[in-house]
Protein backbone atom coordinates (compact mmCIF):
# COMPACT_ATOMS: atom_id res chain seq x y z
CA UNK A 1 0.00 0.00 0.00
CA UNK A 2 1.48 3.35 -0.94
CA UNK A 3 1.27 6.37 1.29
CA UNK A 4 -1.31 8.49 -0.42
CA UNK A 5 -1.80 12.22 -0.39
CA UNK A 6 -4.38 11.84 2.36
CA UNK A 7 -1.77 10.38 4.68
CA UNK A 8 0.70 13.17 3.94
CA UNK A 9 -1.92 15.86 4.50
CA UNK A 10 -2.80 14.19 7.78
CA UNK A 11 0.88 14.03 8.68
CA UNK A 12 1.43 17.73 8.12
CA UNK A 13 -1.69 18.75 10.02
CA UNK A 14 -0.72 16.61 12.99
CA UNK A 15 2.91 17.65 12.88
CA UNK A 16 1.90 21.31 13.03
CA UNK A 17 -0.59 20.62 15.84
CA UNK A 18 2.06 18.70 17.79
CA UNK A 19 4.63 21.48 17.50
CA UNK A 20 2.18 24.31 18.20
CA UNK A 21 0.70 22.63 21.26
CA UNK A 22 4.16 21.68 22.51
CA UNK A 23 5.22 25.32 22.32
CA UNK A 24 1.99 26.21 24.08
CA UNK A 25 3.08 23.94 26.92
CA UNK A 26 6.19 26.06 27.36
CA UNK A 27 4.60 29.46 26.82
CA UNK A 28 1.34 29.24 28.78
CA UNK A 29 1.32 30.66 32.28
CA UNK A 30 -1.56 28.47 33.50
CA UNK A 31 0.11 25.11 34.16
CA UNK A 32 -3.13 23.13 34.06
CA UNK A 33 -3.85 24.36 30.53
CA UNK A 34 -0.22 23.64 29.68
CA UNK A 35 -0.73 20.03 30.80
CA UNK A 36 -3.85 19.78 28.63
CA UNK A 37 -1.91 21.05 25.62
CA UNK A 38 0.69 18.40 26.33
CA UNK A 39 -2.08 15.81 25.99
CA UNK A 40 -3.02 17.34 22.62
CA UNK A 41 0.60 17.04 21.58
CA UNK A 42 0.70 13.37 22.65
CA UNK A 43 -2.47 12.64 20.71
CA UNK A 44 -1.19 14.22 17.51
CA UNK A 45 2.01 12.20 17.81
CA UNK A 46 -0.20 9.10 18.09
CA UNK A 47 -1.86 10.29 14.89
CA UNK A 48 1.55 10.52 13.20
CA UNK A 49 2.23 6.92 14.24
CA UNK A 50 -1.05 5.95 12.60
CA UNK A 51 0.02 7.54 9.31
CA UNK A 52 3.24 5.50 9.56
CA UNK A 53 1.27 2.23 9.68
CA UNK A 54 2.39 1.73 13.28
CA UNK A 55 -1.03 1.18 14.77
CA UNK A 56 0.15 -0.75 17.82
CA UNK A 57 2.60 1.99 18.77
CA UNK A 58 -0.13 4.58 18.22
CA UNK A 59 -2.47 2.77 20.61
CA UNK A 60 0.34 2.46 23.13
CA UNK A 61 1.09 6.16 22.76
CA UNK A 62 -2.52 7.01 23.59
CA UNK A 63 -2.71 4.49 26.43
CA UNK A 64 0.58 5.31 28.16
CA UNK A 65 1.12 8.98 27.35
CA UNK A 66 -2.35 10.46 27.00
CA UNK A 67 -3.91 8.04 29.50
CA UNK A 68 -1.30 7.45 32.19
CA UNK A 69 1.54 9.96 32.08
CA UNK A 70 -0.80 12.91 31.72
CA UNK A 71 -2.76 11.67 34.76
CA UNK A 72 0.49 11.46 36.69
CA UNK A 73 1.37 14.99 35.59
CA UNK A 74 -2.00 16.41 36.58
CA UNK A 75 -1.80 14.66 39.97
CA UNK A 76 1.60 16.26 40.42
CA UNK A 77 0.20 19.68 39.51
CA UNK A 78 -2.60 19.28 42.03
CA UNK A 79 -0.04 18.39 44.70
CA UNK A 80 1.87 21.63 44.32
CA UNK A 81 1.18 24.71 46.37
CA UNK A 82 0.13 28.07 44.96
CA UNK A 83 -0.74 26.60 41.62
CA UNK A 84 -2.91 29.58 40.71
CA UNK A 85 0.14 31.78 40.41
CA UNK A 86 1.41 29.75 37.49
CA UNK A 87 4.99 29.41 36.42
CA UNK A 88 7.20 31.77 38.37
CA UNK A 89 9.72 33.51 36.17
CA UNK A 90 13.07 31.85 36.22
CA UNK A 91 16.34 33.45 37.23
CA UNK A 92 18.21 31.21 34.80
CA UNK A 93 16.40 32.66 31.80
CA UNK A 94 19.49 33.75 29.85
CA UNK A 95 21.54 30.54 30.32
CA UNK A 96 18.40 28.53 29.59
CA UNK A 97 17.84 30.38 26.33
CA UNK A 98 21.50 29.87 25.42
CA UNK A 99 21.33 26.12 26.05
CA UNK A 100 18.06 25.92 24.15
CA UNK A 101 19.63 27.67 21.17
CA UNK A 102 22.63 25.30 21.26
CA UNK A 103 20.33 22.28 21.37
CA UNK A 104 18.20 23.63 18.53
CA UNK A 105 21.26 24.25 16.38
CA UNK A 106 22.56 20.74 17.07
CA UNK A 107 19.21 19.24 16.15
CA UNK A 108 18.98 21.26 12.93
CA UNK A 109 22.52 20.25 11.93
CA UNK A 110 21.74 16.59 12.54
CA UNK A 111 18.43 16.87 10.74
CA UNK A 112 19.97 18.48 7.66
CA UNK A 113 23.00 16.21 7.49
CA UNK A 114 21.22 12.90 7.94
CA UNK A 115 20.44 10.95 4.84
CA UNK A 116 16.77 10.03 5.29
CA UNK A 117 16.03 6.70 3.73
CA UNK A 118 12.51 5.51 3.20
CA UNK A 119 11.74 1.83 3.54
CA UNK A 120 10.52 0.41 0.26
CA UNK A 121 9.00 -2.66 1.91
CA UNK A 122 5.25 -2.99 1.99
CA UNK A 123 3.76 -2.29 5.44
CA UNK A 124 2.89 -5.35 7.45
CA UNK A 125 -0.67 -6.54 7.84
CA UNK A 126 -0.40 -6.95 11.56
CA UNK A 127 2.36 -5.05 13.30
CA UNK A 128 1.61 -6.54 16.72
CA UNK A 129 2.71 -10.09 15.95
CA UNK A 130 5.84 -8.90 14.15
CA UNK A 131 6.72 -6.75 17.13
CA UNK A 132 6.23 -9.64 19.50
CA UNK A 133 8.34 -11.99 17.37
CA UNK A 134 11.24 -9.57 17.65
CA UNK A 135 10.67 -8.72 21.29
CA UNK A 136 10.59 -12.30 22.55
CA UNK A 137 13.24 -13.72 20.23
CA UNK A 138 16.89 -13.97 21.21
CA UNK A 139 17.52 -10.55 19.76
CA UNK A 140 15.74 -8.34 22.27
CA UNK A 141 14.74 -10.61 25.11
CA UNK A 142 17.46 -9.26 27.38
CA UNK A 143 16.32 -5.70 26.81
CA UNK A 144 12.78 -6.84 27.55
CA UNK A 145 13.77 -8.37 30.89
CA UNK A 146 15.87 -5.34 31.79
CA UNK A 147 12.79 -3.19 31.17
CA UNK A 148 11.11 -5.02 34.03
CA UNK A 149 14.05 -4.18 36.32
CA UNK A 150 13.70 -0.54 35.29
CA UNK A 151 9.99 -0.63 36.12
CA UNK A 152 10.81 -2.31 39.45
CA UNK A 153 13.22 0.50 40.26
CA UNK A 154 10.48 3.05 39.51
CA UNK A 155 8.08 1.13 41.74
CA UNK A 156 10.52 1.03 44.64
CA UNK A 157 11.12 4.73 44.11
CA UNK A 158 7.39 5.34 44.48
CA UNK A 159 7.33 3.27 47.68
CA UNK A 160 10.23 5.21 49.16
CA UNK A 161 8.56 8.50 48.25
CA UNK A 162 5.30 7.43 49.82
CA UNK A 163 6.94 6.12 53.00
CA UNK A 164 9.21 9.15 53.37
CA UNK A 165 6.15 11.33 53.64
CA UNK A 166 4.88 10.04 56.98
CA UNK A 167 8.19 9.25 58.67
Amino acid sequence: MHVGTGASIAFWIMAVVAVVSASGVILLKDIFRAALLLVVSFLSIAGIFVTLNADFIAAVQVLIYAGAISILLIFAILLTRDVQEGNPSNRLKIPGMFMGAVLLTALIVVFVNTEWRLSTEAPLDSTTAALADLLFSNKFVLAFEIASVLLLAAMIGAVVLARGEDE
Partner: protein
Amino acid sequence: MPVDRLATGCQPLGFWDGMGLWEQWGINFFPRLGDTMCRAMGGATPGGIPDWLIFAILGLAGAFAVVNVAMLGVPYVILLERKLLGRFQHRVGPNRVGFFGLLQPMADGIKLMTKEDITPRVADKLVFSLAPLVFVVPVLLMFAPLPWAPHAVLADLDVGILYIVAVTSAAEIGVFMGGWSSNNKFSLFGAMRVVALVVSYEIPLVLAIVGVVMLTGSLNLAAIVEGQRFVPNLLWQPLGFIVFMIAVSAELNRAPFDLLEADSELVSGFHTEYSGMKWGVIQIGEYAAIIGFSGIIATLFLSGWKGPAPMPGYLWFVLKMGMIISGFIWVRATIPRLRVDQIMNLGWKFLLPLALINIFVTAGEILAYPDGLPVWLIPVNFAFAAIVVAVAARLLGIQGQPRQVVPAPPVFETMASS
Protein backbone atom coordinates in the same frame (compact mmCIF):
# COMPACT_ATOMS: atom_id res chain seq x y z
CA MET B 1 -9.03 1.56 -3.11
CA PRO B 2 -12.72 1.20 -2.42
CA VAL B 3 -13.68 4.14 -4.61
CA ASP B 4 -12.56 2.25 -7.69
CA ARG B 5 -14.91 -0.54 -6.85
CA LEU B 6 -17.78 1.87 -6.35
CA ALA B 7 -17.12 3.46 -9.69
CA THR B 8 -17.11 0.12 -11.48
CA GLY B 9 -20.52 -0.92 -10.28
CA CYS B 10 -22.61 -2.07 -7.40
CA GLN B 11 -21.62 -5.68 -6.99
CA PRO B 12 -20.28 -5.94 -3.48
CA LEU B 13 -22.22 -3.27 -1.68
CA GLY B 14 -19.66 -2.78 1.09
CA PHE B 15 -18.36 0.67 0.37
CA TRP B 16 -15.24 0.36 2.46
CA ASP B 17 -13.44 -2.90 2.90
CA GLY B 18 -14.05 -3.95 6.45
CA MET B 19 -17.09 -1.73 6.61
CA GLY B 20 -19.92 -3.64 5.04
CA LEU B 21 -22.48 -1.72 7.01
CA TRP B 22 -24.88 -1.31 4.14
CA GLU B 23 -24.11 -4.75 2.83
CA GLN B 24 -25.00 -6.37 6.10
CA TRP B 25 -27.77 -4.16 7.38
CA GLY B 26 -29.04 -3.47 3.91
CA ILE B 27 -29.69 -7.14 3.31
CA ASN B 28 -30.92 -8.00 6.75
CA PHE B 29 -32.71 -4.89 7.79
CA PHE B 30 -33.78 -2.74 4.85
CA PRO B 31 -33.89 -5.00 1.80
CA ARG B 32 -32.14 -3.47 -1.20
CA LEU B 33 -31.62 -0.08 0.40
CA GLY B 34 -27.89 -0.45 0.04
CA ASP B 35 -28.27 -1.45 -3.59
CA THR B 36 -30.46 1.54 -4.31
CA MET B 37 -28.07 3.90 -2.61
CA CYS B 38 -25.16 2.49 -4.53
CA ARG B 39 -26.92 2.90 -7.85
CA ALA B 40 -27.99 6.39 -6.97
CA MET B 41 -24.50 7.44 -5.96
CA GLY B 42 -21.89 5.80 -8.13
CA GLY B 43 -23.08 2.79 -10.04
CA ALA B 44 -25.44 4.62 -12.35
CA THR B 45 -23.16 7.55 -13.11
CA PRO B 46 -19.57 6.35 -12.88
CA GLY B 47 -17.34 9.40 -12.85
CA GLY B 48 -20.32 11.74 -12.66
CA ILE B 49 -19.78 12.35 -8.99
CA PRO B 50 -16.23 12.80 -7.71
CA ASP B 51 -14.98 9.70 -5.93
CA TRP B 52 -13.93 11.54 -2.81
CA LEU B 53 -17.45 12.94 -2.47
CA ILE B 54 -18.96 9.45 -2.51
CA PHE B 55 -16.34 8.38 -0.01
CA ALA B 56 -17.02 11.35 2.25
CA ILE B 57 -20.82 11.10 2.12
CA LEU B 58 -20.91 7.37 2.77
CA GLY B 59 -18.26 7.64 5.46
CA LEU B 60 -20.15 10.38 7.25
CA ALA B 61 -23.36 8.37 6.99
CA GLY B 62 -21.72 5.32 8.53
CA ALA B 63 -20.03 7.29 11.29
CA PHE B 64 -23.23 9.16 12.15
CA ALA B 65 -25.14 5.88 12.19
CA VAL B 66 -22.78 4.31 14.72
CA VAL B 67 -22.42 7.44 16.85
CA ASN B 68 -26.19 7.87 16.84
CA VAL B 69 -26.76 4.31 17.96
CA ALA B 70 -24.72 5.25 21.00
CA MET B 71 -26.38 8.62 21.55
CA LEU B 72 -29.94 7.41 20.96
CA GLY B 73 -29.44 4.27 23.00
CA VAL B 74 -28.62 6.35 26.06
CA PRO B 75 -32.11 7.71 26.86
CA TYR B 76 -33.58 4.24 26.69
CA VAL B 77 -30.90 2.78 28.93
CA ILE B 78 -31.72 5.53 31.42
CA LEU B 79 -35.42 4.69 31.12
CA LEU B 80 -34.68 0.98 31.56
CA GLU B 81 -32.65 1.77 34.64
CA ARG B 82 -35.40 3.91 36.16
CA LYS B 83 -38.04 1.29 35.38
CA LEU B 84 -36.02 -1.59 36.77
CA LEU B 85 -34.90 0.34 39.85
CA GLY B 86 -38.56 1.14 40.45
CA ARG B 87 -39.42 -2.54 40.26
CA PHE B 88 -36.59 -3.48 42.60
CA GLN B 89 -37.98 -1.01 45.12
CA HIS B 90 -41.64 -2.01 44.67
CA ARG B 91 -42.42 1.13 42.73
CA VAL B 92 -43.74 1.48 39.21
CA GLY B 93 -41.11 3.77 37.77
CA PRO B 94 -41.85 6.48 35.20
CA ASN B 95 -45.21 5.71 33.54
CA ARG B 96 -46.89 9.05 32.83
CA VAL B 97 -45.28 10.30 29.61
CA GLY B 98 -46.39 8.12 26.73
CA PHE B 99 -47.17 4.41 27.01
CA PHE B 100 -45.31 2.90 29.97
CA GLY B 101 -43.29 6.09 30.18
CA LEU B 102 -41.70 5.43 26.79
CA LEU B 103 -41.60 9.14 25.98
CA GLN B 104 -39.97 10.00 29.30
CA PRO B 105 -36.49 10.33 27.71
CA MET B 106 -37.88 12.90 25.25
CA ALA B 107 -39.34 14.90 28.10
CA ASP B 108 -36.05 14.74 29.97
CA GLY B 109 -34.14 15.87 26.91
CA ILE B 110 -36.43 18.84 26.30
CA LYS B 111 -36.24 19.76 29.96
CA LEU B 112 -32.43 19.72 29.90
CA MET B 113 -32.36 21.81 26.72
CA THR B 114 -34.52 24.51 28.25
CA LYS B 115 -32.71 24.68 31.58
CA GLU B 116 -30.40 27.57 32.29
CA ASP B 117 -26.79 26.72 31.63
CA ILE B 118 -24.83 28.30 34.46
CA THR B 119 -21.10 28.80 34.17
CA PRO B 120 -19.65 29.93 37.49
CA ARG B 121 -17.95 33.32 37.25
CA VAL B 122 -14.81 32.01 38.92
CA ALA B 123 -14.58 29.06 36.54
CA ASP B 124 -11.98 28.66 33.82
CA LYS B 125 -14.67 29.11 31.17
CA LEU B 126 -12.93 27.58 28.17
CA VAL B 127 -11.84 24.43 30.00
CA PHE B 128 -15.23 24.26 31.74
CA SER B 129 -17.08 24.20 28.42
CA LEU B 130 -14.68 21.78 26.75
CA ALA B 131 -14.72 19.24 29.59
CA PRO B 132 -18.05 17.55 28.64
CA LEU B 133 -16.79 17.27 25.06
CA VAL B 134 -13.53 15.64 26.13
CA PHE B 135 -15.53 13.35 28.41
CA VAL B 136 -17.98 12.18 25.72
CA VAL B 137 -15.97 11.90 22.49
CA PRO B 138 -13.64 9.09 23.69
CA VAL B 139 -16.70 7.14 24.80
CA LEU B 140 -18.27 7.51 21.35
CA LEU B 141 -14.99 6.51 19.70
CA MET B 142 -15.15 3.29 21.67
CA PHE B 143 -18.01 2.16 19.43
CA ALA B 144 -15.99 2.36 16.21
CA PRO B 145 -14.40 -1.12 16.24
CA LEU B 146 -17.36 -2.96 17.81
CA PRO B 147 -18.69 -5.64 15.44
CA TRP B 148 -22.50 -5.48 15.45
CA ALA B 149 -22.93 -8.31 12.96
CA PRO B 150 -20.62 -10.11 10.53
CA HIS B 151 -18.66 -7.31 8.75
CA ALA B 152 -20.95 -4.65 10.24
CA VAL B 153 -18.19 -2.65 11.84
CA LEU B 154 -17.24 0.97 11.35
CA ALA B 155 -13.49 0.49 11.67
CA ASP B 156 -12.09 -3.03 11.60
CA LEU B 157 -8.90 -2.15 13.47
CA ASP B 158 -6.15 -4.71 13.80
CA VAL B 159 -5.39 -3.51 17.34
CA GLY B 160 -9.14 -3.31 18.14
CA ILE B 161 -9.26 -4.11 21.84
CA LEU B 162 -6.07 -2.20 22.64
CA TYR B 163 -7.53 0.79 20.79
CA ILE B 164 -10.66 0.62 22.97
CA VAL B 165 -8.63 0.45 26.17
CA ALA B 166 -6.47 3.36 25.03
CA VAL B 167 -9.36 5.56 23.94
CA THR B 168 -11.41 5.05 27.10
CA SER B 169 -8.44 5.96 29.26
CA ALA B 170 -8.47 9.41 27.67
CA ALA B 171 -11.91 10.18 29.17
CA GLU B 172 -10.27 10.72 32.57
CA ILE B 173 -8.76 13.92 31.20
CA GLY B 174 -12.33 15.20 30.80
CA VAL B 175 -13.06 14.39 34.43
CA PHE B 176 -10.00 16.34 35.52
CA MET B 177 -10.90 19.26 33.27
CA GLY B 178 -14.37 19.47 34.77
CA GLY B 179 -13.17 19.14 38.33
CA TRP B 180 -10.38 21.66 37.95
CA SER B 181 -12.14 24.34 35.97
CA SER B 182 -15.22 24.50 38.21
CA ASN B 183 -13.12 26.11 40.94
CA ASN B 184 -15.12 24.26 43.54
CA LYS B 185 -13.54 22.16 46.27
CA PHE B 186 -16.06 19.37 45.90
CA SER B 187 -15.56 19.16 42.15
CA LEU B 188 -11.82 18.81 42.55
CA PHE B 189 -12.11 16.24 45.33
CA GLY B 190 -14.61 14.30 43.24
CA ALA B 191 -12.36 14.38 40.20
CA MET B 192 -9.35 13.21 42.22
CA ARG B 193 -11.27 10.36 43.75
CA VAL B 194 -12.79 9.23 40.49
CA VAL B 195 -9.48 9.28 38.70
CA ALA B 196 -7.76 7.40 41.55
CA LEU B 197 -10.52 4.79 41.36
CA VAL B 198 -10.55 4.46 37.59
CA VAL B 199 -6.76 4.30 37.50
CA SER B 200 -6.73 1.49 40.07
CA TYR B 201 -9.26 -0.63 38.22
CA GLU B 202 -7.90 -0.06 34.75
CA ILE B 203 -4.99 -2.43 35.44
CA PRO B 204 -7.10 -5.52 36.29
CA LEU B 205 -9.40 -4.60 33.40
CA VAL B 206 -6.55 -4.60 30.91
CA LEU B 207 -4.96 -7.74 32.36
CA ALA B 208 -8.27 -9.64 32.22
CA ILE B 209 -8.40 -8.97 28.48
CA VAL B 210 -4.99 -10.59 28.00
CA GLY B 211 -6.43 -14.04 28.74
CA VAL B 212 -8.99 -13.64 25.96
CA VAL B 213 -6.33 -12.38 23.57
CA MET B 214 -4.21 -15.44 24.33
CA LEU B 215 -7.06 -17.79 23.41
CA THR B 216 -7.62 -15.97 20.11
CA GLY B 217 -4.16 -14.85 19.12
CA SER B 218 -5.45 -11.53 17.86
CA LEU B 219 -6.41 -8.10 19.15
CA ASN B 220 -8.97 -7.67 16.38
CA LEU B 221 -12.53 -7.81 17.72
CA ALA B 222 -13.97 -9.60 14.69
CA ALA B 223 -11.28 -12.26 15.08
CA ILE B 224 -12.09 -12.57 18.77
CA VAL B 225 -15.76 -13.21 17.93
CA GLU B 226 -14.72 -15.68 15.24
CA GLY B 227 -12.55 -17.47 17.79
CA GLN B 228 -15.65 -18.17 19.88
CA ARG B 229 -17.23 -20.17 17.08
CA PHE B 230 -18.02 -23.15 19.31
CA VAL B 231 -17.62 -22.08 22.89
CA PRO B 232 -17.91 -18.55 24.29
CA ASN B 233 -14.79 -17.37 26.11
CA LEU B 234 -16.75 -17.10 29.34
CA LEU B 235 -16.42 -20.87 29.72
CA TRP B 236 -12.64 -20.84 29.30
CA GLN B 237 -12.14 -17.66 31.29
CA PRO B 238 -14.51 -17.61 34.28
CA LEU B 239 -11.90 -15.96 36.49
CA GLY B 240 -11.07 -13.37 33.84
CA PHE B 241 -14.79 -12.69 33.39
CA ILE B 242 -15.31 -12.03 37.11
CA VAL B 243 -12.31 -9.71 37.25
CA PHE B 244 -13.41 -7.92 34.09
CA MET B 245 -17.00 -7.42 35.26
CA ILE B 246 -15.93 -5.96 38.62
CA ALA B 247 -13.31 -3.76 36.97
CA VAL B 248 -15.79 -2.52 34.38
CA SER B 249 -18.39 -1.55 36.95
CA ALA B 250 -15.66 0.40 38.77
CA GLU B 251 -14.51 1.98 35.53
CA LEU B 252 -18.09 3.06 34.84
CA ASN B 253 -18.45 4.49 38.36
CA ARG B 254 -21.47 2.28 38.81
CA ALA B 255 -22.71 1.13 42.18
CA PRO B 256 -21.13 -0.24 44.36
CA PHE B 257 -18.23 1.91 43.17
CA ASP B 258 -20.19 5.13 42.66
CA LEU B 259 -17.92 7.40 44.64
CA LEU B 260 -18.56 9.95 41.95
CA GLU B 261 -22.12 10.23 43.14
CA ALA B 262 -21.36 9.83 46.83
CA ASP B 263 -23.75 12.71 47.35
CA SER B 264 -23.51 12.50 51.11
CA GLU B 265 -19.81 13.31 50.85
CA LEU B 266 -19.09 15.10 47.61
CA VAL B 267 -22.34 16.78 46.45
CA SER B 268 -22.08 15.16 43.02
CA GLY B 269 -18.40 14.89 42.32
CA PHE B 270 -16.67 16.55 39.43
CA HIS B 271 -19.88 17.76 37.79
CA THR B 272 -21.23 19.63 40.82
CA GLU B 273 -21.15 22.97 39.01
CA TYR B 274 -22.59 21.69 35.73
CA SER B 275 -26.17 22.35 34.78
CA GLY B 276 -28.42 22.32 31.74
CA MET B 277 -27.17 20.68 28.58
CA LYS B 278 -23.55 20.45 29.71
CA TRP B 279 -24.69 18.28 32.59
CA GLY B 280 -26.83 16.35 30.12
CA VAL B 281 -23.83 15.71 27.89
CA ILE B 282 -21.88 14.32 30.84
CA GLN B 283 -24.81 12.01 31.61
CA ILE B 284 -24.87 10.89 27.97
CA GLY B 285 -21.18 10.09 28.29
CA GLU B 286 -21.69 7.99 31.39
CA TYR B 287 -24.55 5.97 29.96
CA ALA B 288 -22.96 5.61 26.52
CA ALA B 289 -19.97 4.13 28.33
CA ILE B 290 -22.30 1.57 29.92
CA ILE B 291 -23.62 0.60 26.48
CA GLY B 292 -20.13 0.48 25.02
CA PHE B 293 -18.62 -1.59 27.79
CA SER B 294 -21.50 -4.06 27.74
CA GLY B 295 -20.84 -4.39 24.00
CA ILE B 296 -17.20 -5.13 24.79
CA ILE B 297 -18.13 -7.70 27.43
CA ALA B 298 -20.51 -9.35 24.97
CA THR B 299 -17.78 -9.42 22.32
CA LEU B 300 -14.97 -10.64 24.52
CA PHE B 301 -16.71 -13.20 26.69
CA LEU B 302 -20.17 -13.98 25.29
CA SER B 303 -19.28 -14.62 21.61
CA GLY B 304 -20.53 -11.24 20.34
CA TRP B 305 -23.06 -11.44 17.52
CA LYS B 306 -22.92 -15.23 17.35
CA GLY B 307 -25.74 -17.17 18.92
CA PRO B 308 -27.06 -20.72 19.16
CA ALA B 309 -30.26 -20.02 17.19
CA PRO B 310 -30.53 -18.55 13.68
CA MET B 311 -31.28 -14.90 14.34
CA PRO B 312 -29.66 -11.81 12.74
CA GLY B 313 -26.32 -11.03 14.35
CA TYR B 314 -27.14 -7.56 15.56
CA LEU B 315 -30.21 -8.89 17.40
CA TRP B 316 -28.04 -11.36 19.31
CA PHE B 317 -25.57 -8.61 20.05
CA VAL B 318 -28.21 -6.17 21.31
CA LEU B 319 -29.86 -8.94 23.33
CA LYS B 320 -26.59 -9.77 25.09
CA MET B 321 -25.88 -6.09 25.71
CA GLY B 322 -29.33 -5.67 27.21
CA MET B 323 -28.75 -8.62 29.54
CA ILE B 324 -25.44 -7.19 30.72
CA ILE B 325 -26.92 -3.72 31.25
CA SER B 326 -29.77 -5.23 33.27
CA GLY B 327 -27.16 -7.07 35.31
CA PHE B 328 -25.41 -3.78 36.10
CA ILE B 329 -28.75 -2.27 37.17
CA TRP B 330 -29.49 -5.28 39.35
CA VAL B 331 -26.12 -4.89 41.07
CA ARG B 332 -26.83 -1.20 41.62
CA ALA B 333 -30.14 -2.00 43.27
CA THR B 334 -28.61 -4.66 45.51
CA ILE B 335 -25.15 -3.79 46.80
CA PRO B 336 -24.42 -0.79 49.02
CA ARG B 337 -21.61 1.63 48.25
CA LEU B 338 -18.08 0.74 49.34
CA ARG B 339 -15.74 3.00 51.27
CA VAL B 340 -12.71 4.46 49.52
CA ASP B 341 -10.19 2.31 51.40
CA GLN B 342 -12.23 -0.83 50.71
CA ILE B 343 -12.34 0.03 47.03
CA MET B 344 -8.59 0.54 46.85
CA ASN B 345 -7.97 -2.75 48.69
CA LEU B 346 -10.29 -4.62 46.36
CA GLY B 347 -8.57 -3.24 43.29
CA TRP B 348 -4.94 -3.69 44.22
CA LYS B 349 -4.98 -6.63 46.63
CA PHE B 350 -7.78 -8.74 45.14
CA LEU B 351 -8.37 -8.07 41.45
CA LEU B 352 -4.77 -7.44 40.38
CA PRO B 353 -3.37 -10.72 41.80
CA LEU B 354 -6.37 -12.62 40.43
CA ALA B 355 -5.84 -11.14 36.98
CA LEU B 356 -2.16 -12.16 37.03
CA ILE B 357 -3.05 -15.69 38.20
CA ASN B 358 -5.62 -15.90 35.41
CA ILE B 359 -3.02 -15.01 32.78
CA PHE B 360 -0.58 -17.68 33.88
CA VAL B 361 -3.20 -20.37 34.37
CA THR B 362 -4.50 -19.69 30.86
CA ALA B 363 -0.95 -19.75 29.51
CA GLY B 364 -0.30 -23.07 31.25
CA GLU B 365 -3.47 -24.60 29.84
CA ILE B 366 -2.58 -23.49 26.33
CA LEU B 367 0.96 -24.86 26.71
CA ALA B 368 -0.39 -28.19 27.91
CA TYR B 369 -2.97 -28.46 25.11
CA PRO B 370 -1.62 -26.47 22.15
CA ASP B 371 -4.08 -28.03 19.71
CA GLY B 372 -7.20 -26.78 21.46
CA LEU B 373 -8.37 -26.97 25.03
CA PRO B 374 -10.32 -30.12 25.99
CA VAL B 375 -13.93 -29.78 27.07
CA TRP B 376 -13.36 -31.21 30.55
CA LEU B 377 -11.32 -28.11 31.35
CA ILE B 378 -14.54 -26.06 31.52
CA PRO B 379 -15.80 -27.45 34.86
CA VAL B 380 -12.21 -27.48 36.13
CA ASN B 381 -11.90 -23.80 35.23
CA PHE B 382 -15.09 -22.93 37.06
CA ALA B 383 -14.08 -24.89 40.15
CA PHE B 384 -10.64 -23.28 40.09
CA ALA B 385 -12.14 -19.81 39.72
CA ALA B 386 -14.49 -20.43 42.65
CA ILE B 387 -11.67 -21.67 44.88
CA VAL B 388 -9.28 -18.85 43.98
CA VAL B 389 -11.93 -16.17 44.49
CA ALA B 390 -12.94 -17.67 47.84
CA VAL B 391 -9.35 -17.90 49.07
CA ALA B 392 -8.46 -14.40 47.86
CA ALA B 393 -11.60 -12.96 49.45
CA ARG B 394 -10.67 -14.69 52.71
CA LEU B 395 -7.16 -13.26 52.62
CA LEU B 396 -8.53 -9.81 51.80
CA GLY B 397 -10.96 -10.07 54.69
CA ILE B 398 -8.16 -10.86 57.12
CA GLN B 399 -5.82 -8.32 55.62
CA GLY B 400 -8.25 -5.45 55.22
CA GLN B 401 -8.63 -4.47 58.83
CA PRO B 402 -11.33 -2.03 59.84
CA ARG B 403 -10.42 1.60 59.62
CA GLN B 404 -8.72 3.00 62.70
CA VAL B 405 -10.97 4.88 65.04
CA VAL B 406 -9.98 8.51 64.79
CA PRO B 407 -9.26 9.91 68.27
CA ALA B 408 -11.39 12.90 69.15
CA PRO B 409 -9.68 16.22 68.50
CA PRO B 410 -8.09 17.76 71.62
CA VAL B 411 -10.66 20.58 71.70
CA PHE B 412 -13.41 18.19 72.65
CA GLU B 413 -11.25 16.46 75.25
CA THR B 414 -10.58 19.70 77.09
CA MET B 415 -14.23 20.59 76.94
CA ALA B 416 -15.14 17.24 78.41
CA SER B 417 -12.60 17.46 81.21
CA SER B 418 -13.44 21.00 82.27
